């Protein structure tokens, strides 16, 4: 895979305030990168620099090999940008909105009609083609804006909080749409505060805090590094003491906690397991053979929120 986004020592200062401090990272073609961090961490600043809207104080960034500072027009050809807040034109119909922006991307009129229909079908807004944009719901406007970013078939999509302000159904639709775009081979670099969604669709994450990149890499690997052992929850029908006795005897089990010690559902035990899948399977077999009435036996995958809290300290620029 080739590198599609390369950021090298990007710094942005607003007077005395350093919004972005020596940010460097590379993103491979086809990757879906979740950009997370507290408010004021510098996420939007990074995205605005990458989309040629903001001049960096120092450092450089390239998209598909084009410099954001010296080749802005080439960069705009390969990137589709969706800001966190975006406006719509009054008195403009849905198809006119897309047609207008397609014209702004030099797409010939003969190709625009089909393109508008295809894009509306992709974002499931075909039935709203003749509606005025202003009359659409927030979620529909968001999807329309995403369709707009695709008008010139860019290689890279930079999306600033694409799901912000959406209701649960609209968020799910947006997530599905991003999955679809991922399958189409687009490189997606998006910021979000909804960490579960980031975890759902991204291949890697970049964590930014106070303008510094505090972590960047494959999500699964980062979780693994953060928590080398596995956390297992077991729920029984009340024979907690028997369960504890079996667990204590196992060499791979540590840190046993019950619902009396931590916030867990009743009759549940949580423990750390350092063994392999085979050894975990043997442990479960041992519990069943010991006639302990197991209701559930599950491994806690560890969520992105834990990772985020571990990596960041709540500092803003």
């Amino acid at each position, binding site marked *: 895979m080739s590198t599609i986004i390369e950021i090298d020592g990007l710094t942005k200062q*607003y007077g005395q305030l350093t919004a972005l401090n020596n940010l460097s990272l590379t993103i491979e073609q086809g990757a879906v990168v979740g950009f997370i961090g507290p408010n004021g961490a510098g996420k939007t600043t990074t995205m*605005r620099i990458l*989309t*040629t*809207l*903001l*001049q960096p104080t120092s450092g450089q960034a390239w998209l598909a090999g084009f410099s954001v*500072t010296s080749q*802005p*027009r080439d960069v*705009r*050809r390969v*990137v589709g*940008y969706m*800001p966190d*807040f*975006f*406006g*719509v*034109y009054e*008195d403009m119909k849905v198809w006119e909105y897309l047609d207008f*922006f397609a014209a*702004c*991307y*030099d797409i010939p009129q003969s190709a625009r009609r089909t393109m508008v229909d295809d894009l509306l079908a992709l974002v499931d807004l075909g039935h709203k083609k003749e509606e005025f944009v202003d009359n659409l719901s927030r979620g529909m406007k968001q999807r329309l804006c995403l369709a*707009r970013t695709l008008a*010139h078939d860019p290689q890279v999509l930079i999306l600033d909080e694409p799901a912000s302000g959406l209701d649960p159904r609209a968020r799910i639709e947006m997530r599905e749409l991003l999955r679809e775009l991922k399958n189409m081979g687009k490189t997606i670099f998006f910021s979000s505060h909804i960490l579960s969604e980031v975890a759902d669709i991204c291949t890697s994450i970049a964590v930014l805090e106070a303008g510094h990149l505090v972590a960047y890499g494959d999500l699964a690997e980062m979780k693994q590094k953060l928590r080398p052992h596995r956390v297992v929850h077991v729920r029984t029908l009340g024979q907690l003491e028997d369960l504890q006795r079996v667990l204590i005897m196992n060499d791979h089990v540590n840190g046993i906690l019950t619902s009396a010690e931590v916030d867990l559902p009743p009759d549940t035990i949580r423990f750390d397991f350092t063994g392999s899948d085979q050894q975990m399977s043997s442990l479960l077999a041992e519990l069943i053979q010991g006639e302990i009435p197991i209701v559930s036996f599950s491994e806690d995958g560890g969520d992105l929120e834990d990772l985020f809290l571990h990596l960041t300290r709540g500092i803003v620029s």
Partner: protein
Amino acid sequence: MRGQRAFLLMTAYLLLMGGLIFTVYLAYVASSGNNFGPSNRQAGKAVFTAVLLVQVILVLFIGPTFTSAAIVGEKERQTYDLLRTTLLPARSLVTGKLLSSLSYIYLLIIVSIPLQGIAFLLGGISPIELLLSQFLILISAITFALIGLYISTVLRSTLTASLTTFAVAFTLTFGTPIVAALITSILGPVLFGPSTPAWPVQIMLIYGGLLLAATNLPATLVISDLFLVEQDALVYFTDFIDGRLAYIWSPWLPYIILYILLGLLLYWACIRRIKRVARK
């Protein structure tokens, strides 16, 4: 502006203009004191002046207010960044905004030209007076629209941009007469004294005055029309000052040159502002 709004506004505008012309004509008849009614020529001139006045207000104050919202409105509507990330060149954005704002103003001006025909019927004006005034109005409309557009690229709210544009248009319209009045009242006694000044001072005052008038649309319209009617001079006429031949130029020509240059400068400045990548 789409749908019925444009049509309704245009109808209301023409009805108001028609009402204004009728009122001016009636007022002129009532105040003439002539038992046999006013001369048609004088009534025609009054009608022409009234329509021209409305056109001047449109060009100086309404047109720039439209353009002052053009770019800053995109920023407020949060569509500016969307446009900036497309391949749309800054030149196209400026030209498009200028043309869209001017098109409606031009439409209002053009539909009011037939109303000037009433002045023709009454015999108050000559075709050259009409053509010259409309030419000045059309050129002024572009430059004043560009003033509003430039302010729109600099400021961050529509209200501030509109107020600033209005203040600039007001200064350009009323500033020149105030400056002229101040110069005359302060420097007049010093320069003239009790006797007629020397010819170089007279020449300097005439050219200075004409140049000052050429910065101001109403002054240019009035003086150019006076030269045309009184001296039959479209471009210039000659006069003897202290026995020396002097060419007295009609102010419309320097006005056109000045406003075209100012317009080009503002157009270039607008493109520069839009091209600039934000530093903050």
